């Protein structure tokens, strides 16, 4: 564990989490959530949990962001019902 590296990742992690919750545009929110996943993957890799970091990089930062974007593209502001 490198302390300075930890602190930098944790600060960015909190910033990314708050921005992805507070931003109005859903697409930006999904992208920043992907960044959050990538940062937490870095944190796990740095703590030595390489298998978990690998899963997070593939699922959290990669595929789940794509799923969010695919869903957001198919939503509209007003309901059609």
């Amino acid at each position, binding site marked *: 564990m490198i302390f300075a590296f930890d602190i930098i990742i944790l600060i960015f992690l909190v910033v990314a989490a708050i921005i992805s919750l507070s931003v109005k545009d859903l697409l930006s929110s999904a992208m920043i959530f992907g960044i959050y996943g990538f940062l937490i993957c870095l944190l796990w890799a740095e703590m030595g949990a*390489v298998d978990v970091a690998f899963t997070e990089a*593939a*699922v959290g930062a990669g*595929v789940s962001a794509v799923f969010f974007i*695919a869903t957001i593209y*198919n939503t509209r502001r007003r309901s059609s019902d």
Partner: protein
Amino acid sequence: MLTKVFATIAVVITGGLLLYGVSDFPAFGDPHSPANAGVGNEESISQYFITQTYKDTKVPNIVTAVLADYRGYDTMFETVVIFAAGIAIFAILRVTGNEAEKKSIKPPLDSSINGDHQRIIVGTTCRIVIPVVQMFALYVVAHGHHSPGGGFQGGVILGASFILVAMSEDLNAALRRFSEKTYLTLACVGILIYAGFGLMCQFLERNFLDYGILQKVLFTDGPEMARSHSMLGVEVGVAFTVTAIMFAIYANLSSRGVLKNGL
């Protein structure tokens, strides 16, 4: 406004309690903590895994050995959970026939020279990248018990490569290579491979997923190598299911269950 204030107070109190609980934890990586050193003279389970995994299974990656062998039952039902999630999304979104015609979205095709250039750049890049991604995914699956990785990660990367086909061209191009029938079959086959390894152990009069006895079927020299090879087998099963379900979820989400045109 008032609800926000109360919600903030509740979050702050809960967060404070959690942080207070964390302060009682042993330090990160402390070799004398109960989880690492055991209680009294009893050996802890992590000590057992670190010292005995290689002797038991000849697998250098302890994480994969724990997931696919010692806790194989747990991993099997994790795969079933992924399968159930994919089938649930399929059951909710998939539409056919007349309803599909109504819900079908036809994206405006950008036929200007600008759109053409974009298609050429994205299409060419993806055509070069996708084979590399797929080779890497197969490496992650096949090498999962010797290096970080395994069925879940490799399966997600392989599924993502098909999603990349769907995004760079369109969903129809991806479905021509990996049709609905294929991916639903593949998802079931993956779980059947995993459960088949377990049932084979039962037929040879051992517990479910007790791979050691499979040396009689796999013709290895000793139960250790049988466990190693069985781990590879179940990882392949997991990878089949995860690949198919990842692509199924994307295909249904991006086209509202019509499986045409997509994004």
